[in-house]
C-alpha cells in the first residue's frame, strides 16, 4: 500500500539518482523527499528539478550552523504544484571561507534568502548582488546567527538593564499601596476592604 502512495516520490528519487552523484537520498515521509549533494552539484540539481521535473515553486532556503563539524548545512526546499511533493536539496560547506553558487538567476526570490544568509551567517554566495545590509544596520560584530556569537554577553555589554527584579516583594507592596489611594470612586466599593 505504501508503495502505491509513495509512487511519485520514488520516481523522483530514481531519476535524480540516475542523473546525479548524490551523497545520500531518502524519502522522509509522504510528500517529503530529501537528497544530499556536493556544493558544485547544487545548480545542476536545482535546474534539473525546475526545468525537467516541474519543481517550479521555490518554497524555502535555510542554513544551519553545525559548529561541531565546522560546516554550514544549506537546504533548498522546492515544491511541485501538481504532484504535491517537497524536495529537500541539502549541501554542506565549510564554515570558514566556504562559498556557494548564487542561484537567483533560477528563482529571483532566492536573492532575498541569500542576502539574509550572507548577513546572518557570513556565508559567501558567488556573484550575489544586492544591498549588503538587508536586516541589520551598522553591524560590526560576528554575524549574529553563528553559534559562536553570544547574544547575552553582547546585550550585557551594549544595552542597559533595569534593576528591580530582585526586590520583587517591595514592588508588590508599593503597587498595593498605590492602587488603594488611586482607585476611582466607583471602584472603591468593590475593593477588598
Amino acid at each position, binding site marked *: 500500500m505504501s508503495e502505491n502512495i509513495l509512487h511519485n516520490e520514488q520516481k523522483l528519487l530514481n531519476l535524480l539518482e540516475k542523473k546525479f552523484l548524490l551523497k545520500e537520498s531518502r524519502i522522509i515521509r509522504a510528500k517529503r523527499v530529501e537528497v544530499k549533494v556536493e556544493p558544485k552539484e547544487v545548480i545542476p540539481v536545482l535546474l534539473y528539478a525546475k526545468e525537467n521535473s516541474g519543481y517550479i515553486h521555490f518554497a*524555502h532556503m535555510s542554513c544551519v550552523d553545525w559548529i561541531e563539524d565546522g560546516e554550514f548545512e544549506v537546504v533548498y526546499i522546492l515544491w511541485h*504544484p501538481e504532484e504535491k511533493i517537497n524536495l529537500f536539496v541539502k549541501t554542506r560547506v565549510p564554515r570558514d571561507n566556504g562559498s556557494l553558487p548564487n542561484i537567483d538567476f533560477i528563482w*529571483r526570490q532566492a536573492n*532575498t534568502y541569500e542576502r539574509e544568509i550572507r548577513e546572518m551567517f557570513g556565508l559567501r554566495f558567488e556573484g550575489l548582488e544586492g544591498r549588503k545590509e538587508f536586516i*541589520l544596520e551598522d553591524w560590526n560584530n560576528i554575524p549574529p*546567527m553563528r553559534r559562536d556569537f553570544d547574544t547575552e554577553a553582547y546585550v550585557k555589554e551594549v544595552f542597559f538593564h533595569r534593576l528591580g527584579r530582585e526586590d520583587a516583594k517591595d514592588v508588590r507592596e508599593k503597587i498595593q499601596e498605590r492602587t488603594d489611594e488611586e482607585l476611582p470612586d466607583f471602584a472603591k466599593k468593590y475593593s477588598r476592604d
Partner: protein
Amino acid sequence: MREKTTTLYLGPQHPGITGNMMVKLQVQGDTVVKAETHVGYLHRGFEKLMERRNWLQSFTIVCRICVPEPDPNEENYSRAVEEIEGREVPERAKYIRVMTLELARIATYLLWYGGQSGSAGLYTMPQWSVGDRNYILDLFEDLTGGRIYHMYIWPGGVRRDLPHGFKDKAMRTMDYLEKRLDDYDKLMFENSIFQKRAKGVGIIDPEKATEWGVVGPPLRACGIKSDVRKDDPYEVYDKLDFEVPAMEGSDVWTRALIRRFEIRQSINLVRQALDKMPSGEYYNKIPNPHKWTIPAGDAFVKTESARGEFAYYMVSDGSNKPRRVHVKGPAYVHGVTLLENLLVGENIADVSFIMNSLGTCPPEIER
C-alpha cells in the same frame, strides 16, 4: 510628465505603510519607476533567541513573530515538534486547532478589510470591520485568555478545553458576522469608486506566479488552485467540506474577491469544526519541560495562513533546545521581490493599496 526623478521614502514613519518598513520609491511625476524594500526595523532575532531557550520556552515566543495572525506560528511550531518527536495529537485537539486557525483567519481578513479600504481612503470600513474584529478577539479571550497572543496551540494538543458555553457564543458570533459581511459588501465591493480604484491595478503575471513564489490569495487570484489545506492536508482539513476558490484577473480587485469568498468559507469551517468536534482528551501530556528532549531530525511544515503559505523549517540536534527554527512567512516573498517588481509603473496613490492587497507584514520578513 516631468523627466526629473524624485526619491520618495515611503516609511518607516508613514501612515500608508503596513507595519514598520520602508519602500524607497523613485518617482517621475506620479509614476513609480523603481521601488526598493528596506526591512529590518522589527528584527528581534527570534531564531537566535530560540537557540537559547528550551522547547517550551521557544513556544511562548513564536506567536510574536507575526502580530496580525499569531496562530499559524503556534500551529507550525507545534506540528514541527510533533513531526520530529512523533507525538500523537488527540482528535478533539485537532478540531479545536482547526477552529482556532479559522477564527484567526477571519480576524485577519477583517483587519485586511480595514487596511485595503483604508488605504483607498474609505475610512468608514476600517471602523466597522476592526470594530467587529473585537468579537472574534472576545472569542479568543474566552478560549485562551488573550486577545492577540494566545499561546494556545502547543505541542501535543491545545492548552485548555473549550470553556462552558463557548460553542453557542461562537455560533452566535458567526451569525452576526455573516450579517455584517453583507453590509461590508454594500459599502466596499458595490462601491463604484472602489471598483475603479481596484480593477486593473497591481497585476501579477499569472504564468510566472508560481515560479515567483506567490502564495495564498494572490496566487489563487491568478487562477491557480493552490491551498496548503488541500495540497498538503494537516490536522483534520481533509475531513471538512470546503473548496478552494480560483479566479482569473490577478489584480487587486480579484484578490479582494477571493478574500471576500474565503472569509465566508472560514465562517462555515468554524461551524463545521464545532459541529463535528468529538469529545475526549484535548492534550497529550508533555514531560517536564526542563528535561524534555527531542530526537535529532528536521521537519518542514506548512500552514495556510490568511496571507498564504506559512512555513517553518525546524532542526533538532537531540538536546533540550532547538538547533534552528527558520520561519518563512508569505510576506518574505510578497513584501520584497514581488512588491519591488509589482510597484514599477504604478501610481504613487496605489502603492499602499497594492501592499495591502498582497498582505505585506514586515515582522515576518525579518523576524
